[in-house]
């Protein structure tokens, strides 16, 4: 009998401590690889941010040269969008979607592993461009031609950038297909669409939006690559090319991309707020349908990034109206989240603090967006520091705060130990104060006339005061991330984190039915799902039986 087993599983190297991670097709391990890799790139991208802020603390060219500033700025944007937020959402999705819908794994486990390894490869390619001839790409994360064309960006940095984007779009496309197929086909018994966790709704729309938006980006950067390397003239006006076309193609991807990053964050908030309010989500259907509404309208608003391109009043008006329409489902979500806390039993553990912080800051980012949607006002505020402040209130105050809520919330499920609450709360308060100090003054800088993407400025007075405040804030924000790293180190390396049970937060969804961390097969059996809160149903039934 023992011989039989040895013959069935002749390969043992795969069980090694490192090898088992390299060959894994388990969605949980792939999810963890995604999350940890993205956190690593988050730290790298954050270091670039602090470098930029330090350069801008006072006028002059002291810390970074103007060339280095453009490189750092381009790499910060590209890293945070393509190597941090999008993949970390894929990581959480990988880990949580099968558990939340009561499945054993994703639909295509090997494809899943391929998407992770392509993601890592894309990250390595992008960051190896520091060693390319001529340095990294330095035309901003949009890489608008003609600045990104060979004539104005010689060297290979821009080519590395294009290659990295190609690899990352392939990774995301494979992942997107996997999410859609898994969610449509592999839900457990009883989990109808209206009983699906809201995070799963978000990951479904994340997948669909990626499938729609990514091919346009791939096409745009392919054309750019052909221009640079094969002598075509898609974006060279003197040869009959049209560079406004690139702007359309980039933003037809770029705006859905905003929601590709934001919707999973919204989904996390919709999971966490109810648990720490001890209530169901207020208006499940409204929250689910507004997700779909946002996804649909996100494909009709791209040119609001192009109001200063000179498209004409007709097109500008259309995109202003569509951008305002998208504010309605977003508003529905915000009001429903606020109402979720109404008459609750609010427990201020770290995940809840981050979720409330998300609500406070994302509201601000949404409202400043209305100024940008009104195109005559946009002509004044766009491409200034106002817009930098706006999208950081969305991407950092909104999405990253939701991510930290999610990290603290699902950490015990993923790693089996609770993160320390005191350090977690310290992380939150430092980040909340640091974030606002960094980005609130940037609204004012933009209104004073400071354009984005400059390595220095030539005005004193308030310009210097706001810039210095912003730099101090970035230091506090960096400190908060350091506290989080210490918390993780303390929990795992010093093994000071308390072991987590299956359901430490008294949550509602199926991932908390499995052990922490779950075994390879996830569940031995899955309870029949009779509502959107199967675990609460189970708790109530057990309480009834024992009484």
């Amino acid at each position, binding site marked *: 009998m023992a011989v039989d087993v040895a013959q069935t599983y002749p390969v043992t190297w795969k069980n090694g401590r490192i090898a088992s991670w390299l060959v894994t097709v388990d969605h949980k391990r792939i999810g963890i690889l995604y999350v940890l890799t993205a956190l690593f790139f988050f730290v790298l991208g954050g270091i670039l941010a602090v470098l930029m802020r330090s350069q801008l603390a006072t006028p002059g060219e002291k810390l970074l040269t103007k060339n280095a500033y453009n490189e750092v700025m381009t790499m910060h944007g590209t890293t945070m969008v393509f190597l941090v937020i999008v993949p970390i959402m894929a990581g959480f999705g990988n880990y949580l979607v099968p558990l939340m819908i009561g499945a054993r794994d994703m639909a295509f486990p090997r494809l899943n592993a391929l998407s992770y390894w392509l993601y890592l490869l894309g990250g390595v390619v992008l960051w190896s461009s520091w060693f390319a001839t001529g340095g990294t790409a330095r035309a901003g994360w949009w890489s608008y031609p003609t600045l990104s064309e060979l004539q104005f960006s010689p060297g290979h940095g821009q080519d590395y950038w294009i290659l990295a984007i190609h690899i990352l779009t392939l990774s995301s496309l494979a992942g997107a297909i996997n999410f859609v197929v898994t969610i449509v086909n592999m839900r457990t018994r009883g989990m109808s669409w209206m009983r699906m966790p809201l995070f799963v709704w978000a990951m479904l729309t994340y997948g669909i939006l990626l499938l729609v938006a990514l091919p346009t980006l791939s096409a745009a950067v392919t054309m750019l690559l052909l221009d640079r390397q094969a002598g075509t003239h898609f974006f060279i006006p003197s040869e009959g090319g049209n560079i406004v076309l690139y702007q359309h193609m980039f933003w037809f991807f770029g705006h859905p991309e905003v929601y590709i990053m934001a919707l999973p964050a919204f989904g996390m908030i919709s999971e966490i707020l109810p648990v720490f309010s001890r209530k169901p989500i207020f208006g499940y259907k*409204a929250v689910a349908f507004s997700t779909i509404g946002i996804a649909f309208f996100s494909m009709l608003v791209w040119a609001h990034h192009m109001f*200063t*391109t*000179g498209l004409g*009043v007709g097109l500008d008006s259309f995109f202003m109206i569509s951008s305002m329409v998208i504010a309605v489902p977003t508003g529905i979500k915000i009001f429903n989240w606020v109402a979720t806390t109404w008459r609750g039993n609010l427990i*201020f553990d770290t995940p809840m603090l981050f979720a409330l912080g998300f609500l406070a800051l994302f509201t601000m980012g949404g409202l400043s967006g209305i100024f940008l949607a009104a195109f*005559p006002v946009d002509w*004044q505020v766009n*491409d200034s520091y106002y817009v930098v402040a706006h999208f950081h209130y969305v991407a950092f105050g909104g999405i990253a705060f939701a991510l930290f809520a999610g990290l603290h919330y699902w950490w015990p499920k993923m790693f089996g130990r609770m993160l320390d609450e005191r350090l977690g709360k310290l992380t939150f308060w430092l980040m909340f104060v640091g974030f606002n100090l960094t980005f609130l003054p940037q609204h004012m800088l933009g209104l004073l006339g400071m354009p984005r993407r400059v390595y220095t400025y030539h005005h004193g*007075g308030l310009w210097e005061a706001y810039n210095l405040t912003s730099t101090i804030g970035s230091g506090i924000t960096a400190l908060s991330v350091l506290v989080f790293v210490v918390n993780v180190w303390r929990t795992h390396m010093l093994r000071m984190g308390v072991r987590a049970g299956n359901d430490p937060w008294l949550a509602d969804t199926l991932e908390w039915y499995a052990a922490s961390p779950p075994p390879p097969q996830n569940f031995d059996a899955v309870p029949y799902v009779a509502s959107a809160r199967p675990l609460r149903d189970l708790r109530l039934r057990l309480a009834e039986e024992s009484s």
Partner: protein
Amino acid sequence: MPCGLRRISVLVLVGLTALVTAGVAAAANGGFTPAAPDSPNARHTLTAYYVILGFTSAIFVLVEGLLVVFVVKYRRRERPRTAEGAQVHGHARLELIWTVMPVIILCVIGIVVFLELPKISSAPAASDPIHVTVEGHQYYWQFDYPNGARTINDLYVPQGAVVDLRVVSNDVIHSWWIPDLGGKIQAIPGHPNHTWFKADREGTFVGQCAELCGLYHAAMQAQVVVTSRAAYETYVTTTAKTDLGKAEYVGSCATCHGMNGQGGYGPNLQSSPLLVQPAGLEQRVRQGGVKMPAVGDTWTAAQMQALARYVKAHVYKGAASGG
């Protein structure tokens, strides 16, 4: 977190916010609204801004206020962690209200914007505008006047006249932006754009390129010098021509080579033989060098002569002695 610590954090936060707000309010236009307008388009933009600011501030206070009230009122206190809140699953009428109200508010904002739009996007009718072509260039602004005069970085206009700007570029995308005189518009190769302004008062209005255009993007500053009609006429007919060589050098060459040709990002020019060889100078300026952009690819012959005269007289210090 213990109650005391939390209270202190909140106090510190409130204190910091109050301090920043007070400091800002003390200064004139601390950056809470766009720059003080000095042109009708900028003024109407500001009106639209105030309307949006009013509505968004109200929504901001409502949402953040509710959040704070709920956080304080429904906090756990002595209740056990297991105690459930009210099991409310939703409220159709409430949800309808917060769907319809934003629609109404956005409609009002939209209507205001469309009412202000004609006064922002189009110059006043029946005016006789001064047509100026603005060319964004790595890394300077070039202005062409109706009489054929050309200036670099400084745009001279008479007070009270409507100025129609045709905004173009021949290299990369730039963005024209003088905050006091209205919003920005990109200068896109192969896609000419238009904007306008009408300066209400004499003075100098500054701005800078708002679209990343390369290494010296941050240095690409422009000023609009608004003068009396007579001073403007004198400037474009005579002064612009005599100052052209200097304007070209200061606005374009000096960015990298220094005000006196002493070098900076680019090499020292003071003993460069090109400065006294007009043909070689023209070739270098038109086509660029190893790292140098083709700064003068759209310059006229007259401009080349003006530049050659200026650099020979003011920058050239003689051939290097002894090598």
